[in-house]
């Protein structure tokens, strides 16, 4: 059984997608138990896989028994073992929390939604688990196409925003495919390990250089790296709560994973950082991304849209960290994949709860929420602290490694950008806390307004949210273990 974990990760959700769409015709109430069961199996398999990797090292799985380069190989090391657990757990927690809001927002479309949802998770898991560069492209498209569908189910403007995302996403995926094509031309292989083995003698070739740059641009487009971010804010804002709280935490992070995989495995860090001499430029681009993300977030008067610009800034964190070209920066980037997925999930689930109760997410809808929804807001405070970077929440620790990496690389612009973005986050979140706390204004001692009664979201929404909030703190406290036992081995020894 345990040898089959890599296959289970993709096969189980793929097959349950069919089961769910069939169950939708029979009885809609069957869909939810099926998807929860399937995702639970996936979480179990991903944790089992990570433990296997920790114990025995890299796991290579030949799909259908065909050995590479003919067949597709799944390749799991410490890096994607960790990301798989994150993707699987986020998907499971979110689907549980989203049930009520799906019932409220679009009860008749629940079955197609769940089908697309689990197909998207299949795509994301596949991207992470695969060891084949072309297979990655196929799964990228699976995740993207289902994503367009999920995002388009939202408000009136969602279709337009999703269409915009479709154009940009397709261009990004094409760039990636083009890059892989170049690599295939020069090496004749699509297996990542194989390419990595064949490439070093070819590093002087212009085609390899072109392949690398084209792949990078494609991936940056997909992860909304400033200034290629324009599709993201609208697409995420106008989507339904259930869809945006799946896509916002995962898609950009999985794409960051792909970027790190390209740098560390397919190419070598030496090639990416030394031969190319590009890293300084990319880190400065990341600085611009962080600063612009923060400033654009400041300009928003709408909670959900503000959060989407924070994602743009966070992408800058990870790209910058990975391109600092040292161990601490790379550690920070990988750790931030985990942390940012969790904290983005936390704040988007909060938005989901608020929308469920208040039917809006503009700033003026948020008045008096600390009284009305104390548990949701409590989790929001934890999520906000994590994004600001206050210890012991996990956001602080990845920021620590990023700053350390920047100091070691002597890149003070990146340090300044990280500090700046923390300070702006304080403003961003305390502006919201103020609205939730002070408004509507009362007299000097708050007597004349009878306090609004508590009106919390249903238990099924609040419990997963509180679990995420607790995880944010636990991951922070166990950062030392995560880094020492997992991330340390995910980065090649050569990178210091």
């Amino acid at each position, binding site marked *: 059984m345990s040898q089959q974990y890599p296959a289970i990760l993709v096969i189980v959700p793929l097959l349950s997608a069919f089961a769910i769409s069939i169950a939708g015709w029979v009885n809609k109430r069957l869909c939810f138990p099926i998807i929860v069961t399937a995702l639970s199996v996936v979480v179990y398999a991903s944790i089992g896989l990570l433990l296997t990797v920790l114990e025995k090292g890299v796991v290579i799985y030949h799909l259908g028994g065909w050995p590479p380069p003919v067949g597709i190989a799944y390749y799991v090391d410490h890096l994607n073992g960790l990301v798989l657990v994150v993707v699987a757990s986020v998907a499971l927690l979110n689907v549980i929390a989203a049930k009520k809001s799906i019932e409220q927002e679009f009860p008749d479309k629940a079955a197609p939604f769940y089908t697309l949802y689990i197909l998207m998770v299949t795509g994301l898991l596949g991207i992470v688990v695969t060891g084949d560069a072309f297979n990655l492209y196929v799964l990228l498209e699976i995740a993207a196409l289902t994503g367009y569908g999920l995002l388009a189910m939202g408000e009136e403007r969602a279709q337009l925003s999703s269409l915009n995302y479709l154009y940009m996403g397709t261009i990004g995926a094409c760039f990636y495919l083009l890059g892989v094509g170049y690599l295939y031309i020069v090496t004749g292989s699509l297996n990542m390990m194989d390419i990595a083995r064949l490439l070093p003698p070819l590093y002087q070739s212009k085609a390899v250089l072109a392949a690398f740059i084209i792949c990078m641009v494609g991936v940056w487009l997909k992860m909304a790296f400033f200034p290629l971010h324009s599709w993201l804010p609208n697409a995420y804002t106008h989507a339904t709560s259930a869809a945006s709280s799946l896509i916002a935490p995962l898609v950009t992070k999985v794409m960051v994973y792909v970027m790190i995989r390209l740098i560390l495995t397919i190419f070598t860090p030496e090639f990416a950082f030394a031969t190319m001499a590009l890293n300084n430029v990319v880190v400065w681009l990341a600085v611009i991304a962080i600063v612009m993300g923060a400033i654009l977030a400041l300009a928003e008067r709408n909670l959900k849209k503000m959060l989407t610009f924070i994602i743009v800034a966070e992408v800058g964190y990870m790209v910058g960290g990975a391109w600092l070209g040292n161990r601490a920066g790379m550690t920070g980037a990988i750790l931030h994949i985990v942390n940012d997925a969790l904290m983005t999930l936390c704040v988007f689930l909060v938005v989901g709860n608020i929308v469920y109760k208040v039917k809006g997410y503009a700033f003026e809808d948020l008045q008096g929420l600390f009284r009305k929804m104390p548990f949701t807001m409590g989790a929001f405070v934890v999520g906000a602290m994590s994004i600001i970077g206050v210890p012991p929440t996990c956001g602080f620790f990845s920021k620590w490694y990023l*700053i350390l990496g920047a100091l070691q690389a002597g890149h003070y612009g990146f*340090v300044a950008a990280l500090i700046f973005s923390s300070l702006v986050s304080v403003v961003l979140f*305390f502006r919201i806390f103020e609205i939730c706390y002070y408004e509507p204004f009362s007299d000097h001692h*708050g007597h004349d307004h009878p306090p609004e009664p508590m009106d919390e979201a249903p238990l099924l929404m609040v419990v997963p949210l509180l679990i995420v909030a607790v995880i944010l703190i636990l991951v922070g406290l*166990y950062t030392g273990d995560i880094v020492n036992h997992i991330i340390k081995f995910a980065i090649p020894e050569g990178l210091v």
Partner: protein
Amino acid sequence: METITSIKPLLAVLVSLLVTPMLVSSRNPNVREGWTFVAAIIKLAIVASMVPAILQGTEIVYTVAEVFPGVAIKFKVDAFGMLFALVSSSLWIVTTIYSIGYMRGLNEHSQTRYFCFFAIALSATVGVAFSANLFTLYLFYEMLSFATYPLVAHHQDREARSSGRKYLLYIVGASIGLVLPAMMICYNLTGTLEFSKQGIFTGTEPNATMLVLLLMLVLGFAKAGIMPFHSWLPAAMVAPTPVSALLHAVAVVKVGAFSVLRVLTGVFGIDLLARLNLGTVICYIAAFTVITASLIALSQDGLKRRLAFSTIGQLSYIVLGVALLSPKGMIGGMTHIAMHAFGKITLFFCAGAIFVATGKKNISEMVGIGRRMPITMVAFFIGSLSVIGLPPTGGFFSKWYLVQGTIQADQWPMLVVLLSSSLLNAAYFFPIVYKAFFCTPEEAMFENRIEEAPIWCVVPLVVTAAGSIALFFYPTLFLKLAELATR
């Protein structure tokens, strides 16, 4: 030095944190306050139980988790931390009694929230006191910043909102903007953040970065109220008076001063500061704050605002004492944490009692109040004696050591600063007391009839005033701890 591993410091920190669910779930206010008392007494008991070991010169350590190579969430109880923890946890009990009188006397809203965040703030304070390294200190420092925000903004009106903003801007802005990068640079240079007598820069060449780092760390801990990062404190006076009393005279501001002292003695180390002559820089910054704050205090009519500026000046005494880098000066600075705490909390309790009983906030409206509230005003007199530094109050000792410290360090300008500041202190406190008791019947604004604040308010201020006097006769414990800390 001997060390013992014990979980006690962690428990002392956690006890007030773990009581918050009880506070939230209590339906009956008396049960809720009962829980606060239980937590406060247990906390003091745990802290006090460690005193004998500390007095014997041992240190108590406990590591929670290693988060970075060489950096852990770690507690270490030494004499200096013990001194501060003892002061804040004992005054928490008194303040709780006072809070009950004040909050119920004014029929304040959201009392559960108030008591919860108060408990969290105390956890953070003791956490700072027991931190073994700069990272743990930073963790609890930030926790305290965010836990006090709802207390500062308690009234939820427009004034509270703008004060809350100012509070965050200064405190969090300085800690993220200055302390965090400085801490990272220290870690990058040395690979450790552990406090030690020799400082953490033992292996590195002294250079100009040191001065920059020192200034970033000293000014970044803005809770110490060193100018120009002081103006959050007068703004924070919008909070209910027990908050101003415990947090803005004892816990929060002293956490700032404590952190600065830790930076001076634990991160840089006295030897390095002396070698690079950096102590003098800090001395002059502190001296400027001492004099300027006292001068501003003279012109304040709001009683709490006058007390706030007085606090800003007194906090810089603490910093100045240690920055003198002489043993006597350090003892003076450290004991001043305790001595000033008892004196200033008395003064705030009095200000709150006056507000509860009469609704008056301004000094100009308090002529003749001594006839109406004699106990309160006598306590106020004792408190001001302690802050000025006159016998028979504990404040005399810390001033005494500070003055000796300046002579020992051969810093005559600082001696002048201390003495003239004492005169200024007298100049802004004594008129209040004088006008309260000695005025013609026409001037008096109150009827000649004794009417004190509720008993819950009066008892604590009598206790802390008595404490100030008791510290004059029995200062041994705090002096001993300070001496141990300077060794």
